[in-house]
């Protein structure tokens, strides 16, 4: 085996409440997370991603199913017996302890020798660049610094897996970007398996080795960022990650005949399946002169300027809307304007047929 599995959930079900009012926060989830990878659980709030994280941490026990760590069943182990640490969304730093005491807490509880505790604590503080703050109370730190303490504290006992529960959500945009880079660096330097929970698709795409997209207690798709972005498995994944144009049509002989007229070439392996939806990313939509043959006729309804990019909103013959993302310099030169009639083409291989 070239790859080994760090954490595995097998048919994990977690129901809250009893009987008829029981809600399945996790609905039969199975996932394998590889050793040393940066795995992200991505989904809207209430999709069950935090519940899955808490099952791995041991704060919740599954209603049924099991959790494995290094191939060993840890489903019934309490959190303090799991070599897994968590960075909490609220940080949950101990207010009565200094930064250094916070970081050394886990090591002390493990009963590591004093010299090792001190050495490791110093190393961790250096890793998150907080050596100068060692003696401060955590309440004297800024949000970003508290975040680093939480990271150092969770990393200090050298866990097999680090769980991160939306750790960046409380930070402002600039700091969040910095911490994204920082997290990725820490993960590479320590080689520890990271399981990261977020609802921010951009965060997920930039940091992860693999992403598990979740909705309503289920994992809908697992794959690398590029995979998930370019080959979304279904409509939810396609709409949750990035922006997408959905075009209805019918599949026939490797082409989708669009309801709005015209057709798109898709992967030839697909069988004829009647009504389908085609997903096309806005950046894969090309605008050509209306006179070009085979181009899909469209009318520009709006142009929204975003700096580098301009979003061009268009209406097709049947009234359905398509958005194209163009570089602002290009859209300027092309002389696009509201009400203008244009033709559309799609980049080869850009169209993705989705199951309903």
């Amino acid at each position, binding site marked *: 085996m070239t790859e080994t599995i760090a954490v595995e959930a097998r048919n994990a079900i977690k129901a809250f409440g009893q009987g008829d009012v029981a809600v399945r926060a996790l609905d039969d989830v199975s996932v394998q997370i590889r050793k040393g990878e940066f795995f992200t659980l991505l989904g809207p709030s209430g999709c069950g991603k935090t519940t899955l994280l808490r099952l791995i941490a041991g*704060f919740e026990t599954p209603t049924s199913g099991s959790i494995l760590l290094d191939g060993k069943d840890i489903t019934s182990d309490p959190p303090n017996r799991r070599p*897994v640490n*968590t960075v*909490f969304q*609220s940080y*949950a*730093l*101990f207010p009565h302890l200094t930064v250094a005491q916070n970081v050394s*807490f886990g090591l002390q*509880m493990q009963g590591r020798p004093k010299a090792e505790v001190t050495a490791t604590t110093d190393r961790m503080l250096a890793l998150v660049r907080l050596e100068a703050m060692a003696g401060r109370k955590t309440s004297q730190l800024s949000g970003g610094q508290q975040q680093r303490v939480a990271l150092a504290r969770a990393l200090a006992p050298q866990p097999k897996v680090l769980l991160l529960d939306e750790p960046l959500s409380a930070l402002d945009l600039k700091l969040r970007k910095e911490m994204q880079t920082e997290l990725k660096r820490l993960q590479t330097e320590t080689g520890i398996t990271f399981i990261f929970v977020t609802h921010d698709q951009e965060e997920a795409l930039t940091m992860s080795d693999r992403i598990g997209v979740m909705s309503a207690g289920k994992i809908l798709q697992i794959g690398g960022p590029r995979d998930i972005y370019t080959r979304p498995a279904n409509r939810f994944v396609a709409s949750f990650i990035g922006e997408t144009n959905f075009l209805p049509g019918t599949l026939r002989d490797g082409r989708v005949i669009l309801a709005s007229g015209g057709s798109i070439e898709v992967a030839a392996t697909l069988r004829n399946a009647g009504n389908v939806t085609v997903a096309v990313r806005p950046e894969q939509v090309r605008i050509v002169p209306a006179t070009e043959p085979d181009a899909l006729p469209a009318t520009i309804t709006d142009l929204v300027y975003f700096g580098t990019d301009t979003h061009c909103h268009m209406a097709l013959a049947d009234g359905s809307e398509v958005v194209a993302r163009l570089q602002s310099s290009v859209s300027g030169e092309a002389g696009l304007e509201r009400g203008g009639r244009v033709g559309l083409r799609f980049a080869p291989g850009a169209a993705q047929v989705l199951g309903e």
Partner: protein
Amino acid sequence: MSMSAGEEAAKRRRVRDGWLLSAPALLLLTLAAAGPLLVVLVYSFLTPGQYGGVVWEFSTDAWVGILFTRDIFTETMQLADAHLAIFWRSVRLSLLTTLITFAVGFPTAWFIATRPPKARALWLFLITIPFWTNLLIRTFAINEVIRNEGILNSVLMAAGIIATPIQILYTDTAVLIGMAYVYLPLMVLPLFAAIDRFDMRLLEAGYDLYANRWQVLRRIVLPIVKPGIVAGSILVFVPSLGAYVTPRVLGGGKQMMIGNFIELQFGQGRNWPLGASLSMLLLLIVLAALLVYVRAAGKGGAHGQ
């Protein structure tokens, strides 16, 4: 800069109005608290009258008399063992009462603080009900429970667990039970306030970092709710030390505490100055305890938020 001058005048007016408004309370406090206290202080330096009261003759005998008695035959000073025994019992019983109320009160306060908000209000109300009952009645209720023919002994004997009644009434144990019962709410309320502020998410952080239940309690919960523990302990310890009714009713007069001893000096003992000096001593002990509290609370406040 007429603006700031006007503001200054307004501020001066506010300060003056503030003093005026608080004048009634200040007057009452001065007359009702400081005044009598001063009388007690003065009395402690006077000579006892033959049938009670005081003779206006300066003397430090009352203060010396706290610790020493003059042997009537040899006129030598001896350590007053009986007094020391009473002080020691008072301090010991008060400390034990504090410990017992903490041991009972902490789980209680934790339980209440972890209930849903609605149930919490009900539990707090139930805890404070005894407050609305007269202290004497509550003490006699305890008497009814623990006396030889009382509820406790009757039930135990009926159940065949004991053959003869256990003598609890008129022992230190009876005084302890009574005081712990009476002062329990004073421990529970500040503990509840502290636990209520405690961020329960820290428990998970503790477990996550390999601490077991005991370590989470000792290393995380107790240090953080310490201000509540100190406040509760002071609130129980201080009145316990000066308790009068409870040791009188449940201790049967033989198991005296400082409060009863002071009363004795003003009554049968006919030694008002000694009673006065003992009262001042009690006040000093209480002030010392409060000093401990202020310092502990100050430290607690530093890492609050």
